């Protein structure tokens, strides 16, 4: 609990750092709040005074009343204006802070190590940037508009009440905490119910997510009845716990209202008795009593609001903490200031004694040695999950080696800028990725300045021109999120076209044609073959026919390179590769 408290404080401090950008607006908002609260509280005194001028038939002081009422009108207008300006500046501050937070989070994502991003589901990070930031906005706005004015109102009312009458003020101050006590008593009881409710709800959402998300599988196995049975069971539990949670939590308002009504009755009693006992001294007039009653109502209200705001603020601080976790996550080791820029790359790649593992207790790649001359071709083969993709992660420096080194043209890749290293690699991955935009934009992703002719030429080389022309708007067709309605194979063709537009000196093809039918693949292979001439290439494939021509074949299994050599030597060796090779021709 204490830990949680200090965390909240730490987060609050970080939020304050962001508020600095809005220092002036913030001060303005505070000033306006003071004015608004002060004037709002002054108004009942004014009305009280006015009422005191209206005593009985014939005893109405019209001369004093008119200027009093005029003053009231002016005050009302000023209050409203200040309140409006205050609302607007609060909006500006809050939305601005959140925009900056989001921006910083996004910028940070760009420099986070892949080890961080790979470990977390995309949805989790997205929900930090979007949903948590949103929740935080709500909390912050509410905090601004209610917490602050609430406290000011309480303090102000207290002062005004004191000027009116001491005994009644004492009664109100003593009795009000009772409503807070009642509220927190109920809140504690309902907390567990709400926790139970969100647990049950999460359980149900998981079931819905699975059964609806895989609806086709459910239908295929005629599993509907079983699914509905499971659903009903959870739904029933959810209904029971929700009903309790909703009911008990809804008791807060009537109960605190009840306490407030009691306080009100007490004020009326004490006030009336004072009026009766010292009618002559005029320490309390009827107008004063009326004003006091208004204050008593106003004084208790912020307490209810603030207890709501505190929960909301705590919640929003928890969200902000999740966002800060992202913003403060450790970035990749930045490029050294004296890092070399790889230019005129020849494509000599050397891996010496490379060891790597994603987690320290599970060694993956150990003592991998490989020396490639410019223009050589390496194929990496092996069963699914054997670590082929890991090698690529290391080459592109998505991950850094744990031990040993990788050199390009004789320079350790850790001593050159990431951008210049990646600029010299062209890659096509098995997992296609297209951005929302036109087909043309997607092909020209690596070279936005490419001419239309170049784009079409690249598409032709990737055998994508045909299907692109058949799209409704040709190269101008706008693709939805992740390629929209294109088939997996078509997406892969677009990714290959991207490569044909850049033509860097080193290539990485990770199952680049896995979703393309073999006839088209054969044609692309020919284009690839031409492309690979003079370029150092890394090819990952499970179709072995494509790797036969390679200069070196790395055969991997369970993260280890178990065989290394060219096609002929490996076949003669009669090991794992030979077995793999043989199996594809079995009928």
């Amino acid at each position, binding site marked *: 609990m204490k830990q949680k408290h200090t965390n909240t404080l730490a987060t609050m401090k970080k939020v304050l750092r962001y508020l600095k950008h809005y220092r002036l607006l913030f001060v303005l908002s505070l000033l306006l709040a003071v004015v608004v609260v002060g004037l709002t509280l002054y108004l009942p005194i004014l009305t009280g005074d006015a009422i005191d001028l209206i005593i009985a038939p014939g005893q109405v002081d019209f001369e004093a009343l008119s200027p009093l009422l005029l003053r009231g009108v002016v005050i009302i207008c000023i209050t409203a204006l200040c309140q409006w300006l205050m609302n607007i500046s609060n909006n500006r501050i809050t939305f601005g802070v959140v925009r900056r937070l989001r921006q910083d989070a996004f910028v940070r994502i760009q420099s986070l190590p892949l080890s961080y991003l790979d470990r977390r589901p995309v949805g989790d990070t997205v929900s930090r940037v979007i949903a948590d930031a949103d929740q935080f906005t709500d909390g912050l706005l509410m905090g601004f508009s209610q917490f602050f004015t609430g406290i000011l109102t309480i303090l102000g009312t207290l002062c005004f009440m004191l000027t009116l009458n001491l005994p009644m003020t004492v009664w109100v101050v003593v009795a009000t905490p009772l409503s807070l006590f009642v509220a927190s008593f109920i809140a504690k009881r309902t907390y567990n119910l709400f926790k139970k409710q969100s647990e049950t709800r999460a359980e149900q959402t998981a079931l819905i997510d699975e059964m609806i998300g895989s609806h086709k599988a459910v239908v295929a196995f005629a599993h509907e009845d079983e699914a509905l049975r499971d659903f009903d069971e959870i739904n029933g539990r959810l209904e029971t716990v929700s009903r309790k949670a909703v009911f008990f939590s809804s008791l807060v308002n009537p109960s605190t209202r009840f306490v407030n009504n009691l306080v009100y009755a007490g004020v009326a009693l004490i006030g009336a008795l004072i009026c009766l006992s010292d009618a002559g001294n005029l320490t309390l007039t009827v107008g004063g009593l009326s004003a006091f009653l208004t204050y008593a109502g106003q004084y208790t209200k912020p307490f209810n609001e603030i207890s709501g705001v505190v929960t909301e603020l705590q919640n929003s601080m928890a969200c902000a903490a999740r966002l800060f976790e992202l913003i403060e996550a450790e970035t990749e080791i930045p490029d050294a200031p004296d890092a070399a820029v790889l230019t005129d790359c020849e494509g000599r790649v050397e891996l010496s004694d490379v060891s790597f593992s994603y987690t320290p207790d599970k060694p993956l790649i150990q003592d991998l040695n490989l020396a490639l001359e410019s223009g050589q071709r390496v194929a990496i083969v092996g069963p699914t999950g054997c670590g082929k993709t890991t090698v690529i992660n290391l080459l592109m420096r998505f991950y850094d080696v744990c031990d040993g080194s990788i050199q390009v043209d004789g320079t350790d890749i850790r001593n050159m800028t990431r951008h210049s290293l990646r600029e010299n690699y062209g890659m096509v991955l098995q997992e296609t990725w297209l951005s929302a935009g036109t087909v043309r934009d997607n092909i020209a992703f690596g070279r936005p300045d490419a001419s239309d002719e170049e784009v079409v030429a690249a598409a032709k080389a990737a055998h994508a021109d045909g299907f692109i022309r058949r799209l409704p708007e040709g190269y101008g067709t706008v693709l939805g999120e992740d390629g929209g309605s294109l088939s997996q194979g078509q997406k892969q063709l677009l990714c290959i076209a991207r490569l044909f537009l850049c033509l860097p000196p080193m290539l990485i093809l990770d199952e680049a044609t896995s979703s393309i039918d*073999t006839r088209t693949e054969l044609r692309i292979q020919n284009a690839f073959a031409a492309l690979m001439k003079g370029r150092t290439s890394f090819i990952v494939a499970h179709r072995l026919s494509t790797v036969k021509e390679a200069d070196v074949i790395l055969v991997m299994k369970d993260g280890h390179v178990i065989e290394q050599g060219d096609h002929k030597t490996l076949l003669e060796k009669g090991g794992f590769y030979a077995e793999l090779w043989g199996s594809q021709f079995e009928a």
Partner: protein
Amino acid sequence: MKIFLRCLRMYPKETILAPLFKLLEACFDLCVPLVVAAIIDKGIKGNDTALVWQLCGVLVLLAFVGLGWAITAQYFSAKAAVGSAARMRRELFAHMQSFTYAQTDRMGTSSMITRMTSDVNQLQTGVNITLRLLLRSPIIVFGAMIMAFTIDAGLALIFVAAIPLLAVVVFGVMLGGIPLYRKVQNRLDRVTAVTRENLSGVRPVRAFRKEGSEIDRFAAVNREQTSLQNKAGILTAVMNPVTYVIVNLAVILLIRQGAFAVHEGGITQGQVVALVNYMGQILVELVKMATSIFTVTKAVACGNRIGAVLDMPAGMAVTPAPDGTPIPSADTPAVVFDKVTMTYEGGGAPSLHDISFTAKRGMTVGIIGGTGSGKTTLVNLIPRFYEADEGTVSVFGLPVQCYDPEALRESIGVVPQKAELFKGTVRSNLLWGKETATDEELWEALEAAQAADFVREKEGQLDAPVEQKGRNLSGGQKQRLTIARALVGKPEILILDDSASALDFATDAKLRAALRELAGDPTVFIISQRTSSIRAADLIIVLDEGRAVGMGTHEELLRSCEVYREIHESQFKGGEA
């Protein structure tokens, strides 16, 4: 609106009782200013201490009774809101379960999930707020006006003028704000899309060194969203100050006119205080009402989204078998396609065009063709996942439309292209194939699917946990488990839709050998990109852009079908050269 009202009708008793008790509570609240007026006018001015005590006692009594009414009202409204939401959720779930593949395609998974979760939750809150608060506020507002009339009809006219003015402001801001907030929400969707896209494409983004331009793209949508938020904020920031002005100017007016009335002896000082208090109550209630109206409009919108789903006709029509259909015998072919054509909704050209073939019992049928040639579409017609537009698909002598869809699907085992597993254990996943299967049967299926080895190595074996979507398994393991799942039910027809793509050649070969040995001699459909996987099939169908361009055995097709020969050569030229 329809769904929202239906929720209310589900619990008619509670829907009437909850606001009724709220009404009672409100009435008691409205009595308070009258009692205070009496304390001032009769107690203080009449110097009657006993009466002051009595009247304060009345105030305490009112507080107690009000609490009782309120609790009762809260109970009924919680019951109605939660109960109707639970029923709505069940109805939606059951309805969506009966959707066809085409309907699922049209709706989209994430939209179906949000409707069942956040939309229903919003609806629940909306119903609850309506029963509890929304009806209370107008009662107080109009109640205050009526009470004003009982005090002085002339002064009450000020109420009559102020209330419509307030209504115009509150509803005006709301109506103006709703479209603005919808825009803000849409812009937020864009921010989400950019973030999601950037994260899912970290590797390409970094490989192409696009970090800088991605940041610019994000900054643009982010800034746009903020400026829209500010714009919407300016409007909503108006509501509180304006209502404050109207109510308080009305108070000033009340005092002024009240002064004349008191001067002429029409009313007393205490009654002026009561009128001012009533005006104050209206302000408090209006603020509450404004927030609850926002919630309710949202709930109505969510209810409409739910209604749209429920209005979609679900399920498939079953036509009775025509009279005189021969009882299927051992000679009846398992699957017959007769001039079948099928077009996806929204797809221009047909995905399958005039396909006819006959698969006898026990046959193995291979289906091969390029990307998007219609292979999956063809097999999806057999369990009636989609309907053929023209021609008929018959299973065991009867058109598929004559079967109860569930019964039909129970006799067909499907292994989809994308391996999908469910949270639970290996066992719970396998039991999908047949609920009553024994362990022995499960192991038998695992053996045939080449999955027994890795399951045996897992801790707990059949009880080894499987995470949602089978995330804790490799692609190949998932595929083998989905194959085993289909085999458990000992289906009469088995469909393997490119289900071995993640398997290496050695395992794939072993799997094919095991499938040939299956007990019960099922009819097997195998979709593959590789000729090696289907060369042993009794019948191979070669598809090209939805048309069957070749049909026959491997040898026949090599001789007669150019497309098939090209596919074959593209895979074997390397090896056989």
